[in-house]
């Protein structure tokens, strides 16, 4: 199973750039899980959203809370452009 290339960037810095198994993204129209090979799409995020990153299949998810932004799924992977990270 090929890995998904996941990038998380804010205006201040590149927060993440790594290969993961799956990321669940809370889109404004509904949550979805991004796996490798997902059809290209582009969505706004919920105003206060929590991304769940699964490094491997079945692993415990790591939660990253972000504030506003966009997610893009393309042939190269998943890119999340967030306005800020809430730690």
């Amino acid at each position, binding site marked *: 199973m090929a890995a998904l290339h996941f990038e998380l960037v804010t205006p201040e*810095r590149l927060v993440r750039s790594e290969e993961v198994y799956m990321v669940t993204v809370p889109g404004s*129209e*509904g949550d979805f899980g991004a796996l490798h090979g997902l059809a290209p799409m*582009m*969505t*706004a995020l919920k105003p206060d959203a929590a991304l769940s990153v699964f490094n491997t299949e079945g692993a415990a998810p790591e939660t990253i809370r972000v504030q506003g932004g966009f997610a*893009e799924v393309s042939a190269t992977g998943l*890119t999340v452009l967030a306005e800020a990270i809430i730690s």
Partner: protein
Amino acid sequence: MASLKALKIRINSVKSTQKITKAMKMVAAAKLRRAQEAAEAGRPYAERMAAVMASLGSQVTLSTSTPKLLAGTGKDAVHLLVVATSDKGLAGAFNTNIVRLARKAAEDLKAQGKTVKIYCIGKKGRDGLARLYKKDIIHSVEPGDLGKCNFADAQAIANDLTARFEAGEFDVAHLFFSKFESVLAQTPTQLQIIPVPVLEADAMAKTDAAVDYEPDEETLLATLLPRNLAVQLHRATLENAASEQGSKMTAMDNATRNAGDMINRLTIQYNRSRQAAITTELVEIISGAEAL
């Protein structure tokens, strides 16, 4: 021949100049590190944003309802040059290089029969361009200390630009800033910001599947486009801040070295005249004694 006293005063004056340039160099070096980190950390976001915009732009089918920031006004007559420089000088050729690039672009556009308007960010750019294109400058803002500019400032400028664009003041906008490569190299750069440059369809890996947009592409584009503009402006400011400090550091380093050379030259001249004075005095005493 300058008198001994005049030379002494001159040497002291050059020495205090050297002290100032040395201090400025050190301040620039300290500020540079912070500015450089900020510029490099801000790059990925701006680049991803530009990539997302470009791929989005190439996928969307243009229609009358497509936002103008992406599709353009359909004309190519009035060009706006957004020239981002700094407010302060003493930074070597930093401001001059940006102004020169902008001037070249303005000349090229004018030669093609286009109307050129200029929007200045930074006092130095305005001063440099005002001599030749006083009539063309439509607005200028003074950002103050570039290192303290934040995203909100860029947002404000972006909003102003968008409002002007929607009022039909211009058709195409180019942004001029200095890209920070290293302490020794800063490249003046030109970037088209309105309408968003769209990649050629075959230049990118295109997938057969149409991209899904949530919410619909109109809503998405309407929020993404002004945001992209602010991000690109913010990035230009960050790059400029780092370039300014880098350029200032180099310039002040050179100035310190030049002052050192000058002090050496003046000291030699001072010693020579002192020796000449002593010799004259000796000759006078000896010839006086012989005459007795």
